[in-house]
């Protein structure tokens, strides 16, 4: 079970990387300075960096979402968990707690949220889409309670540094996303965890009879998803120096699911790749940034996005795959 296995299992990732390249090329066409980079206050500055930086929260959500989807589940609550954890972090920051305390508290809240989802799915056997819908709906209310309906702002330098500082010129959210992604990929592929997740995704009953502790593995997947959402929520709050319970992470659960699907993970469970989900997140963000740079009227945003997504999914569909092999043989 080597690291290379993760690539073999999910193919080479060629369709995903090609998609990303095509979108970056399209961005360069609509905006020729797309690849220009310069240093600004010790931080790289340019549209490419914006893609990485703005895509980081969705990329982090996609890490946890990949594991959940690989178990044949789905986690609709990640956007709401972002709002809750961001609210906790911002409220504590404005009360003047130290950074480690804030981080531990926000992550602990994310862990509890994930545990709640995991228990509903694994122990009570509620369908994942319903189980996580509960927190998706109530989560924003909980976040509202924490912020008392206001946008809580803070000037806590430690928390601001989470999204505002940089490492080797890269914005910190990018570094966090890459470290978490590689660590999670290593964890699932260098241990048996990945195999167990896949087996549950393919057939939970059979896996259980084969001696897999499917309950614990399922709960772990949702807990990881909750923790990822907490990290994304902390970054989102740090970025705007405040917690906006109504809007933080709004609809990002859908972007995260899309990133996972674009990354080639099957919604029917089983096959998955965390690293390709990160590529999927970058595909989505590259598209968003390209639309913003293009100067098209905003009424077209969603139409352009929808067309591109449809094309990506058609190109990646099994039928298209069979067609290409068919034509290659000729």
């Amino acid at each position: 079970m080597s690291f290379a296995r993760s690539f073999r299992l999910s193919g080479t990732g060629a369709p995903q990387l090609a998609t990303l390249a095509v979108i970056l090329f399209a961005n360069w066409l609509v905006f020729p300075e797309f690849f220009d980079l310069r240093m600004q206050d010790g931080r790289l500055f340019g549209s490419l960096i914006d893609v990485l930086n703005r895509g980081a929260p969705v990329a982090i959500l996609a890490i946890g979402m990949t594991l959940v989807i690989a178990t044949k589940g789905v986690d609709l609550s990640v956007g709401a968990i972002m709002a809750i954890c961001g609210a906790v972090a911002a409220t504590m920051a404005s009360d003047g707690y130290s950074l480690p305390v804030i981080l531990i508290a926000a992550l602990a809240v994310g862990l509890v949220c994930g545990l709640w989802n995991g228990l509903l799915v694994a122990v009570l056997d509620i369908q994942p889409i319903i189980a996580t819908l509960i927190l998706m709906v109530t989560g924003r209310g909980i976040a509202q309670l924490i912020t008392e309906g206001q946008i809580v702002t803070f000037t806590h330098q430690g928390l601001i540094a989470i999204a505002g500082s940089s490492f080797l010129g890269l914005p910190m959210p990018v570094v966090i996303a890459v470290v978490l992604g590689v660590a999670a990929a290593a964890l699932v592929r260098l241990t048996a965890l990945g195999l167990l997740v896949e087996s549950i995704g393919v057939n939970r009953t059979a896996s259980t009879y084969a001696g897999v502790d499917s309950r614990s593995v399922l709960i772990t997947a949702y807990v990881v998803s909750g923790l990822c959402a907490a990290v994304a929520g902390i970054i989102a709050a740090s970025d705007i120096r405040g917690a906006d319970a109504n809007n933080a992470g709004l609809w990002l659960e859908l972007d995260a699911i899309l990133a996972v699907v674009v990354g080639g993970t099957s919604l029917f469970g089983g096959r998955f790749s965390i690293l390709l989900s990160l590529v999927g997140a970058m595909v989505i963000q590259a598209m968003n940034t390209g639309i913003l740079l293009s100067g098209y009227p905003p009424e077209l945003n969603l139409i352009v996005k929808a067309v591109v997504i449809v094309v990506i999914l058609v190109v990646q569909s099994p039928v298209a795959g069979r067609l290409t092999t068919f034509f290659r043989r000729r």
Partner: protein
Amino acid sequence: MSTRKLLLGAVFSCALSFAGAAAAADMTIGFSQIGSESGWRAAETSVSKIEAEKRGIDLKIADAQQKQENQIKAIRSFIAQGVDAIFVAPVVATGWDDVLGEAKDAEIPVVLLDRTIDTKDDSLYLTAVTSDTVHEGAVAGEWLAKEVAGKDCNVVELQGTVGSSPAINRKKGFDEAIASHSNIKLIRSQTGDFTRTKGKEVMESFIKAEGGGKNICAVYAHNDDMQIGAIQAIKEAGLKPGTDILMVSIDAVPDIFKAMADGEANATVELTPNMAGPAFDAVAAFKADGTVPPKWIQTESKLYLPDTAQAEYEARKDLGY
């Protein structure tokens, strides 16, 4: 306790209506508020309470949690209690005819706050107190035209949610105001969904697309939250918001006053949370001598500049924005 109060209020108001006219000081008014969807909404609720207290009015607020059926229930219970007037901030525009008809039959005047409704029968409500969102955009545009005084100025616009009425109207008003000034050009316009995060992301791309921000002379944002995001994006690009780039937005929330006091924003147009004040006065005049107010009471769209920013911030920060 509260039921007893309600009963007392109901008896009291019945007695008063028998007496003929009710002075403002003795009125009981029911207010069906949408919920706490935004900071502005929270401020509207707290300002309504303050304004009621000033006038000695007993204001009963029902929070509808963004649901029309809750508002309808609240209005019916206000009718049953026999309040002197009912205020409604309608969550949607349609579907009010039945319940407002019941209020009309009970001879309880209804005042719409902040939003209006679609109805064929405008006798269903006494008046509507709202702001003119087209005018808000115009005030922002006129300020910018005066500020640049004939110099060339490229403006980027952060729009609200695509298709929402404040976004459409605030764009329209601004466009009309700058139309006669050929020196002011709107070079980019994109939606920031009324949020800080999106405002920041869109501004980042505007800066890259316009030569690192050098081509941008002013930012016009449809709300202050997007502007606060834009201010951060400009600072991170190594420019000075408020000095290198003029910043004008709408709403007048406390945080924009803080930014103005720090010299990072130049102007904001107020969407006043005090919709209830004018409504109380209209109802009091109607009850006292039957003065029928105009069907639409437009609130003032006041322009605020940095000179009063610190004082305005202190005055607003506890209103629940």
